């Protein structure tokens, strides 16, 4: 981990990298110079075909949850993993952006690990706040990222992309929201230092890095400092979960993408008294759960495709 592979040595990258995202609504955006413009779906998929590097994000499996909003979170998690194994183009690896479990119970983690055996690819994890209740993530890290110390963060290079996995759920008691903390931010600065600005960066974490709705803790207090280190890169994609719905934002070269859950939806920001499991008609449930496929096309784009379980 944290290897220092140069990004495609010998390749001279000119101009801006483009970043595309398909939000599941049939819209595709390409961003050049900070100005998004629409693209036809055909063009997007043509661009993401062939030699590109593909990986998958899954999030918020909440294994252990069994109430009305979804009495069978094991089943929907299995369905999500089934989607991965049936993708026409097999992903190189999988990211799980947290809330693997619902209550941080050892037996929930064990069940999740058992179900996750369906995935043959490497899976990289960051914890959600539901994974660190009462023990700061000890059980979670022992099982899912045993090479790290409890609460640890990491980076790695794959497919010409620099991946950064960060933890923003251990500051809730002091920050009243997501936060990275000084030590992690210092590490990020060092980790990115000296890397070519043309290296595509994918940062994955649990809580959104922009203030979607701070009243519900939907934001990361010290994210601006992290972004100050990321700004100089031509293509930055931030993948997170936590709010169980697709929300996107593009700011300069940074594309923020929050993913669906595999367990249950949550209300839109500010709708109702509090965040939490939202009941939808049983026949609708799988249309609001899903996985996310990300295609990285060298010299061209990061294309984000959200796929529901319906």
């Amino acid at each position, binding site marked *: 981990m944290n290897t220092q592979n140069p990004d495609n040595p010998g390749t001279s990258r000119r101009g801006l990298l483009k970043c595309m995202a398909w939000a599941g609504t049939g819209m595709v955006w390409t961003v050049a110079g900070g100005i998004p413009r629409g693209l036809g779906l055909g063009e997007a998929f043509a661009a993401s075909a062939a030699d590109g590097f593909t990986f998958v994000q899954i999030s918020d499996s909440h294994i252990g949850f069994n*109430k009305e909003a979804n009495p069978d979170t094991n089943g929907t998690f299995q369905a999500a993993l089934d989607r991965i194994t049936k993708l026409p183009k097999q992903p190189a690896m999988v990211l799980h952006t947290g809330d693997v479990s619902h209550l941080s*119970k050892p037996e929930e983690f064990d069940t999740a690990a058992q179900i996750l055996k369906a995935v043959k690819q490497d899976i990289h994890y960051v914890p959600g706040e539901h994974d660190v209740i009462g023990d700061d993530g000890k059980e979670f890290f022992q099982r899912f990222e045993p090479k790290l110390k409890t609460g640890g963060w990491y980076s790695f290079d794959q497919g010409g992309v620099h991946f950064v996995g960060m933890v923003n759920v251990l500051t809730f008691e002091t920050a009243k*929201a997501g936060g990275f903390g000084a030590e992690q931010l210092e590490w990020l600065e060092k980790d990115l230092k000296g890397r070519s600005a043309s290296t595509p960066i994918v940062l994955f974490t649990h809580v959104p890095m922009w203030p979607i709705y701070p009243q519900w803790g939907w934001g990361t207090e010290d994210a601006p400092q992290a972004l100050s280190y990321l700004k100089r890169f031509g293509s930055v994609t931030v993948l997170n979960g936590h709010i169980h719905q697709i929300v996107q934002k593009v700011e300069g070269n940074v594309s923020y993408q929050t993913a669906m859950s595999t367990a249950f939806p949550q209300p839109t920001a500010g709708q109702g008294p509090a965040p939490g499991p939202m009941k939808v008609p049983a026949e609708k449930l799988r249309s609001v759960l899903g996985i996310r496929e990300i295609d990285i096309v060298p010299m061209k784009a990061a294309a984000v495709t959200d796929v529901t379980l319906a």
Partner: protein
Amino acid sequence: MTGLMTRQRLAAAAAVSIMLGAGTAIAEQPQPAAPQQVAATNEAEISIQSFQFVPAILTIKPGTAVTWVNRDEEPHNVVSPDRVFRSKAIDGGEKFTAVFDKPGTYNYICAVHPHMHGKIIVE
């Protein structure tokens, strides 16, 4: 802020916490209770409902056992900033009890939803 509980009482509260964590949830149905500001006996209840502690401020006598009852579907926990007390996850329908022996003011939050605040005054 130290000396919240006697050693024995602390051990008892920790045992409850471990029980909850191991999934042997207390089976009895939570009784609907009117929120109260001052506990007259040595037992008191705080309801967790709609992401709020009810009552948010509870005044008790030393030696009172305070039980948090989660009536939401979402799990919560209770933790004081200095971690004088900290529960594991309290799922919907579950409870957590801690005994407060020493006078003082104890702020706490839910670490899963840090916008949830509560306070216990022991006097």
